[in-house]
């Protein structure tokens, strides 16, 4: 660990400590009712008890399973569709337009339809997540494949790379920077749609984080609401590190990017 990394870690820690400090000061000022503004301590206490009685780990597992399955399906549909629409005008004019339209539709809007079609089941949840993921992944993939410099495809053709080989060994890796950012965006959309679905829909097959958040509000347990929000943020950060950071490191090393404007 270099002095530079230590310095960055200290700065980041100080920043978050200061945030909590300000929060605690606001609680101590007693200007707001503890029902509206719970103390950091009570949030930590809720987290401790919810972990101890198993309700929080269970809800996290339920949510993550829905998220990962829905996201995987969304990518599995969106990625090939994006490649196809970049290659065939017919797909661009049909599915491409549809995707563009549906991407602007907030995924909460799918919930009434999902409930009518699937009832209060896991499938309704999955449907909303898939709808939230697919279109943004498809559009990012399409953009990525179109941005590839023509000379790569030409060079590949002269070396005898045609058809499927060219797709796998040239088009896909060449659009990797766009694929990764598209998949990240898809992940964010999936996460948002799932939370919306879980908050609005009670599903008997399992309580997710969104449902815990919802019941926190119903019970006026603001420390529960804030604690769950924290968990949601932390999961988002961890997922980013675990799922995408390795790819981005590879990307930056190979392409020589990622230094920003420093």
């Amino acid at each position, binding site marked *: 660990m270099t002095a530079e990394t230590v310095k960055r870690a200290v700065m980041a820690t100080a920043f978050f400590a200061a945030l909590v400090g300000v929060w605690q000061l606001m609680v101590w000022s007693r200007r707001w009712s503890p029902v509206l503004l719970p103390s950091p301590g009570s949030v930590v206490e809720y987290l401790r008890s919810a972990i101890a009685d198993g309700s929080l780990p269970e809800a996290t597992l339920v949510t993550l399973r829905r998220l990962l399955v829905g996201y995987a399906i969304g990518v599995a549909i969106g990625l090939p569709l994006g490649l196809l629409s970049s290659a065939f005008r017919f797909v661009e004019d049909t599915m491409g337009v549809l995707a563009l339209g549906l991407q602007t539709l907030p995924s909460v809007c799918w919930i009434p339809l999902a409930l009518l079609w699937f009832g209060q089941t896991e499938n309704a949840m999955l449907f909303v997540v898939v709808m939230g993921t697919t279109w943004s992944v498809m559009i990012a993939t399409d953009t990525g494949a179109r941005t590839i410099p023509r000379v*790569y495809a030409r060079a590949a*053709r*002269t070396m005898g790379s045609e058809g499927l080989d060219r797709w796998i060994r040239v088009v896909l890796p060449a659009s990797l920077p766009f694929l990764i950012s598209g998949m990240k965006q898809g992940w964010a959309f999936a996460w948002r749609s799932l939370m919306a679905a879980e908050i609005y829909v009670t599903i008997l097959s399992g309580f997710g984080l969104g449902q815990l958040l919802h019941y926190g509000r119903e019970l006026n347990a603001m420390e529960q609401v804030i604690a769950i929000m924290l968990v949601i943020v932390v999961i988002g950060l961890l997922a980013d590190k675990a799922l995408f950071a390795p790819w981005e490191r590879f990307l930056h090393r190979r392409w020589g990017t990622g230094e920003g404007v420093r």
Partner: protein
Amino acid sequence: MALAAVAAAPTREIKGGELEVDGVSKLFRTRRGIVQALDNISLRVAPGGFVCLVGPSGCGKSTLLDIIAGLTRPDTGRVTADGIPVTGPDRQRLVMFQESALFPWLDTLGNVLFGLKLVPGLTRRQRIEIAMEHLRLVKLERFARANIHELSGGMRQRVALARALAPDPRVLLMDEPFSALDALTREQLYDDLQDIWHARRKTVLLVTHNVREAACLGDRVVLLSPNPGRVRATFDIDLPRPRDINDQAISGYATRITAVLKSYYAPEAVL
């Protein structure tokens, strides 16, 4: 295939690589109308020959190279390679582009291996051996694991040369490969290219707008004029090799070629 051994050998036999361009024409439709890029071009490159195509921008020299590579179809006329009509790209005619066109998602060795993966009958070890031989040939074996963005412009073009030579094509097509390099790097590459051409006995067709470069490298220099692209003159460069770009005799040829070239810069031809 004893390719790895051959790459290291000082000289070798010429095996094929004859190019015949016969009455090739090509039109392009643009927003401003139809442009005749090439008009009835005919030329022949002997096996193992080194021909340079020179001409001002817009004379269609890169289009002609694309047609010979099989990347573009001519409207009329035909191209044959060793007597076989060209209908598409072929591993016997590999291309080096102006921008190196190296793949940034692969390292140096990975780039040289790219074309070799499509050569049938090679094991993985043989492929790596051949790729390393060619990196040695361009003096970049120490950079096998380097990322493309870490290489200088000259090094990139060397890797591109290694990549094009590795599958052992009969013909090497070069589309202004040195135009983006600084003068010193370029001169070094002229020497290297002549050495490699001498050792590997490939047929080379090089497109350039640099008359001196053409006179230094080519056995023959073919001059194209623009609007429409036509063969205007052919010069045989009768000088011993290896040649030095700064040689007086090359300046003499370059001056003569430039004089002819200038006479085709009709005012309406300058866009």
